[in-house]
């Protein structure tokens, strides 16, 4: 489904990703862990199409298409979803209008008619209950004045609305209390099918108790330096990153 080959990315002349290789198949859950500043969010942003970053080498193929060639909106419509580490507040843009526009853009891309107002509201209701997000929040402007945890929940709500093929969740667990973590993880699990895939970026093993990964990668200094099963997360939780850093000569 997703194939990243030798991806090099720089920003302002500084190399951040230095040859990433990653293959994700339908139905899989991948976890990416790694110390602060390793390049995890950079990778996520590049997949979503943020133009701040320069891809200097490599390729990314998503469902047979060259992803790097596409505008962010087209990537979204092809089925990529980025759950932002820091969701943006957009005062004046109502969540309802935002989601309606997004959902209908996706439908248009698939050759479907826009949803009627009542069907849209029905969809909203259904997805809201899936992530247990309060109408008080969805009645406001996008993320405006939301707490850290509420913003993360809202990301999963949007994911539920858009039903992506590949979700990249960048530290969706940080800032969530225990209950919210469970709700969010349940939401992600309920959205899971045999045909879609998830990349979860996290610092904490506890999320992976709920969203069980097939593969765990360690991203360090712009490279994936270790790939193993879910037990790797436990090992990292126990030992930290020093041994990784040592193994990689720093």
């Amino acid at each position, binding site marked *: 489904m997703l194939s990243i080959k030798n991806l090099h990315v720089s920003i302002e002349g500084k190399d951040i990703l230095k040859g990433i290789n990653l293959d994700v198949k339908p139905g899989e859950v991948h976890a990416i862990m790694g110390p602060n500043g390793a390049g995890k969010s950079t990778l996520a942003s590049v997949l979503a199409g943020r133009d701040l970053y320069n891809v200097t080498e490599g390729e990314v193929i998503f469902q047979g298409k060259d992803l790097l060639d596409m505008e962010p909106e087209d990537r*979204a419509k092809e089925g990529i979803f980025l759950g*932002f580490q820091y969701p*943006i507040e*957009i*005062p*004046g*843009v109502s969540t309802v209008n935002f989601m309606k526009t997004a959902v209908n853009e*996706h439908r248009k891309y698939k050759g479907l008619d826009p949803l009627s107002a009542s069907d849209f509201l029905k969809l909203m209701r259904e997805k809201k209950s899936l992530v247990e997000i309060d109408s008080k929040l969805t009645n406001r402007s*996008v993320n405006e004045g939301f707490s850290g945890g509420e913003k993360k929940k809202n990301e999963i709500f949007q994911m539920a609305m858009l039903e992506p093929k590949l979700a990249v969740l960048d530290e969706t667990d940080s800032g969530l209390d225990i209950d919210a973590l469970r709700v969010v993880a349940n939401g992600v699990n309920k959205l899971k099918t045999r045909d879609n895939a998830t990349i979860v970026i996290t610092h904490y093993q506890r999320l992976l108790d709920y969203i069980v990964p097939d593969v765990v990668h360690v991203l360090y200094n712009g490279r994936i330096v270790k790939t193993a099963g879910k037990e790797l997360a436990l090992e990292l939780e126990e030992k930290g990153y020093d041994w990784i850093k040592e193994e990689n000569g720093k």
Partner: protein
Amino acid sequence: MADINTINKDFADLFNQGNELLLEGSSDVMNETRKNAFQDFSKLGVPTRANENYKYTNLIPAFDHPYNVNLKYQNVDVDLNEIFQCDVPELDTNMVLLTNGWYYGNNKELTELPKGVIVCGVQEAAEKYPEIFNAHYGKYAKTDEDGIVALNTSLAKDGFFIYVPKGVVIEKPIQVVNLLRSDRDLMATQRNLIVVEENAQAKIIVCDHTLTHHKYLTNSVTEVNVARNAIFDLYTLQNQHLNSVILNSTYIRQESNSNVLSNTISLYGGTIRNNHHVILDEEHCENNTFGMYLMDRDQHVDNFTSIDHAKPNCLSNEHFKGVMDDQASGAFAGRIFVRRDAQQTQAYQSNNNLLLSNDAVINTKPQLVIDADDVKCSHGATVGQMDEDALFYLRARGIDEKEARQMLMFAFAHEIIEKIRVEPLKERIDELVDKRLRGEISKCNTCAIACNH
């Protein structure tokens, strides 16, 4: 190109040679005021950029043009009521028409107005209701401070007059449509007076509608007195073609416990200068002065405002926002005066600008003159580009770039539209601004509220 002296001399000649016509049909009070105003104009002249208050707006090219001037009411050869119908069903208003600055002689009678409310032309008001008219006319507009106000008062013959008696609440807004229709380039002078008595409530919508493509210069002055406990809204929608000049000066005086909201929305016009002066002349007034400008191409807008806290315990909120594209230029000046005994004043001001191109410019200048010590004041001005992070966030959800930009611009502008206290008008303006930002209203002959004609 003519210099300023030639322009001023031409006006002096017009005043002297046209004196008979100027005096004819105007009341003694109007003519007395006229005489004094002309003395002021002789001293001040049309303001140039050397004048600190007009530093950002060059009026010479605006005035340097052979305009026709009508010193007499010109009969209209068609029925304007027929040509112009505002049949927006949700926006139910009491509508009157003005033609080239004059109260249209064939206006339909407003049958739904509460008893005692007067809506007519200024000339007629001066004659029929002198006790009201004379108590207010020329009392608030400062001819000795601004040359174009002096010029307006020197040449003033007509405009609209609205009187709302004590305790009368007008539910339906009164809509004044300024029709510009001429077969030659024209300078229109319009002089309006609005008197809202104690405990009265009224909402007025003023909009423009250019019916022909000629070059217009409109110099209008509106005086407003809002008495104790009255609530008054003034919505101004500026929408003229790119070859026009709008000089619009408003003077509002508020008495105790009155509440005024004004919202000046500039959608189109070649050169727009709004002078907006408010004096909070008694205690416990609330004033809300809002404005929005959406400029592109070579358009120019200059909002020059002053809020004078003359008495204690008043609150003022001022917020102007602008979206500037292409080579558009603009200025905002926000003056707040808090006089020495105006303790417990609260005065807030902000001006936010969104620049969509590298060539657009805006000069923004808050100016607070505070002579009292127990006051809460704040001001802030921002000039920025579109928020790239927000743009990416929207795009990352599948919304294409153009639509995402549109959503963000609209959100920016909506903060001002939200303040409109007439629900159907708010919806209208929302639609209109959305269209305007999409570049769908670019022709001149559209009424701001999208009326049919």
